[in-house]
């Protein structure tokens, strides 16, 4: 299923209708029973929470996208509402963790580092691609809508399938290549400070895929390498420690049909990147390099 969910999918939940199947196994029965219980608990919880919210001003309201292909009653996408007590410094990730640990342990999202380095928790918050752990609650309008990244297959709740993103990242030969190393055993390759500065921003990518999700071109052309992969190519193509011959090869890769020329400089990737990488600029620079390069041969 896709992540483009129109607003009106928020609907009152129905009790999971028990479908009669032939001779359900004991485990199936238990699980069905569990689902029924979970549904009931959810209704109860939402009522309690709403009451608490009314009594206590200082809570935030979250509307969180829910979907699970595997669980009856969650196969139809819906939004669940959670009321979370606000504390100073609270991030969207904190609020999600609170909701999960307090109200509904089946609420699912990727997260690990909580400090914007692992790139696990990019999601669609109030209509924009954000890292949940790096987004302060008090900067958002309520109710806060939390959805999975657009333009990706939803696995469950806020989790999307990243295989395609990884494939694109790995399609640009994303590893250092050189034909020459210094002679001395313990000797490093030299790199100027200027050159290191030039590639610095491009090396900060945390593979969160926010840029890919924000890009209209990527949405329309599934084979488009996308901003993050092109940025990865930039990181190596501009590194003076790789030789000219390697750079040639790199330019050929990003010049292919679904490479840099697809970019229409809409800057959406640059706007959402949580690491402030000037993606559009990097893509533009590679375009110029490619042109220069072709000129050499003409």
């Amino acid at each position, binding site marked *: 299923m896709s992540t483009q969910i129109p607003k009106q999918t928020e609907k009152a939940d129905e009790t999971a209708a028990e479908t009669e199947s032939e001779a359900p196994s004991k485990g199936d029965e238990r699980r069905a029973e569990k689902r029924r219980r*979970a549904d009931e608990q959810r209704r109860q919880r939402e009522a309690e929470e709403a009451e608490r919210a009314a009594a206590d001003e200082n809570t935030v309201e979250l509307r969180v996208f829910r979907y699970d292909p*595997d*669980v009856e009653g969650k196969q139809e996408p819906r939004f669940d509402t959670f009321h979370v007590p606000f504390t100073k410094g609270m991030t969207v990730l904190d609020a999600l963790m609170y909701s999960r640990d307090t109200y509904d342990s089946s609420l699912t999202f990727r997260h*690990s580092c*909580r400090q914007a380095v*692992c790139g*696990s928790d990019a999601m669609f918050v109030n209509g924009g691609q954000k890292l949940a752990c790096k987004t302060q609650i008090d900067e958002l309008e309520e109710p806060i809508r939390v959805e999975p990244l657009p333009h990706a297959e939803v696995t469950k709740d806020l989790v999307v399938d990243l295989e395609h993103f990884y494939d694109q990242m790995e399609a640009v030969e994303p590893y250092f290549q050189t034909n020459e190393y210094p002679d001395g055993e313990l000797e490093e390759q030299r*790199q100027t400070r200027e050159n*290191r500065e030039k590639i610095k921003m491009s090396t900060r990518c945390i593979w969160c895929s926010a840029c890919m999700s924000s890009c209209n071109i990527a949405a329309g052309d599934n084979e488009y390498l996308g901003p993050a992969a092109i940025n990865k190519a930039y990181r190596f193509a501009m590194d003076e420690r*790789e030789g000219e011959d390697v750079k040639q090869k790199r330019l050929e890769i990003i010049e292919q049909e679904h490479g840099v020329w697809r970019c229409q400089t809409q800057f959406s990737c640059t706007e959402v990147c949580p690491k402030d990488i000037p993606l559009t600029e990097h893509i533009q620079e590679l375009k110029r390099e490619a042109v220069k390069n072709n000129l050499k041969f003409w």
Partner: protein
Amino acid sequence: MHEHDVVVVGAGGAGLRAAIAAQEEGADVAIVSKLHPVRSHTGAAEGGINAALRDGDSWEDHAYDTMKGSDYLGDAPAVEALCKESPEEVIQLEHWGMPFSREEDGRVSQRPFGGLSFPRTTYAGAETGHQMLHTMYEQVVKRGITVYDEWHVMDLAVTDEEDPADRTCHGVVAYDIQRGEVDGFRASGGVILATGGMGQVFDHTTNAVANTGDGVAMAYRAGVPMEDMEFIQFHPTTLPSTGVLISEGVRGEGGILYNEKGERFMFEHGYANNDGELASRDVVSRAELTEVNEGRGIEDEYVHLDMRHLGEERILDRLENILHLAEDFEGADGLTEPMPVKPGQHYAMGGIETNEHGETAIDGLYAAGECACVSVHGGNRLGGNALPELIVFGKRAGHHAAGKEMGEPEIPTGKSGDWEPAEYEFEVAVGTVGDRGPAAADGGAVASDAEGLLEAEIERARERVEDLLARKGRNHAEIRSKVQKTMTANVNVFREEEGLKQSLSDLREAREAYTDVAVSDPSRTFNTDLIHTMETRNVLDIAEALTMGALARREFRGAHWRKERQERDDENWLKHTLVSWNDGEPELWYKPAILEGEAKTYEPKVRSY
């Protein structure tokens, strides 16, 4: 069932280096990791990698600093291996393209770090770990090493002989998080555990949510002792709501700590009259907690770190990344207000007992990285010494598992060398609670051959999953939170007899509660409720062993402080603490620290800087 020569569990710095090394030796290697490699917590390291690269520096000096920093609980053969091999490993990273910071002449930059006699901390801006992790993952992609990502390893497939020294590890069983299936990974050469830290044992930590010490707990239940678990490093300046680390740099530049009354307590309350805010990590952490405990904390929780007086220009120039951290993760503006900070768990010096080749007491089972205790950090880790450990010992474990001849190790594992039983009587029961039942997943399966063993383990793991999904009971989150709270309250930088005993009895209750645990999400797809429930079992095992060690060790060494005896006691405690699971009846024992190295014998000296 999947089959490989070498199976590496975990894809942080240690796991990636181990996999590359095993492949260099010609092995067919696979990585199994619950996170995609680039999500590993190695990416969070900022400061740098210690390596004696330059004229005027030497591996011997690095070894001396490390031994002194360890408070003489490091094992010299491991420390010397670390310091000797770190330079070539750092240069290897550079040859793989790692974007280190550079000097005017184009060579990699190094900076000074606490406890080092030479500026040998090699770095890449404030993101050394991120660059190291990505550089090594690039090499894994280049080499086409198989990665099974988002597979949670549940347990090891280890034979069931009476004596752990006779057991063999034949592989692991894992749960495919995306698809909800259990499968086995058979390893004919060896399994290398590289599962990282265990910060989730505490409720406030700089570690990731995924750092639940799984590898340590798995190896422990299979019969490998946990070593020196009581040695936990706490960092004095972490943000209260998330645990995100604010580096020493702020205090280095002149940042000041204040309590609620606006007192500069490091001086005004006499914690460190000379060094003030720049005293060592444990001294500052204890001072902050004392302020809070005596009612002078802000909101009874934290203190203030103020850098406003440094002026906007200087802050922007040298501490810009701190401004972002405080703003993004705490909503605080370091230019106009003081930043709230409190101590947080940061690093585990202890872990799976190994020798300098990464071998454990069980044949075919290796460990490297933060989950292992080889031991290079002893009682206290120096900043910048964990990252080199990942690459030096990751590589060694990878080579050995792939069959490389590496000579006789000098560090004994298990009860093969000198050892002595602990005399300590714990008043609270520890270990298995009553009838374990499948939810708890203890003990090993019995089978005659490797293939049969794997099959039996897979079956047991499946039953465990089915049972957790089907049964009614309580949610793991309340149990985990109880463990974390008591550990933070009682086994932190302050450790006293009563508190430690309290913790042990709270942990007992938590263990009892866990026999009743259940997963409420019935899904087969990305069931994080199930994963977290299994992790909580690991957190419990580790918390218990850690507290046992802390109770028994009545001295002040490195990061371990005891109210009852506030000084180092070399006469009785120049030895490692080990805890063996013993099929459910934990046993505490000791083995001597090895202070004789190749370069010299490291005579214990007073640790003052």
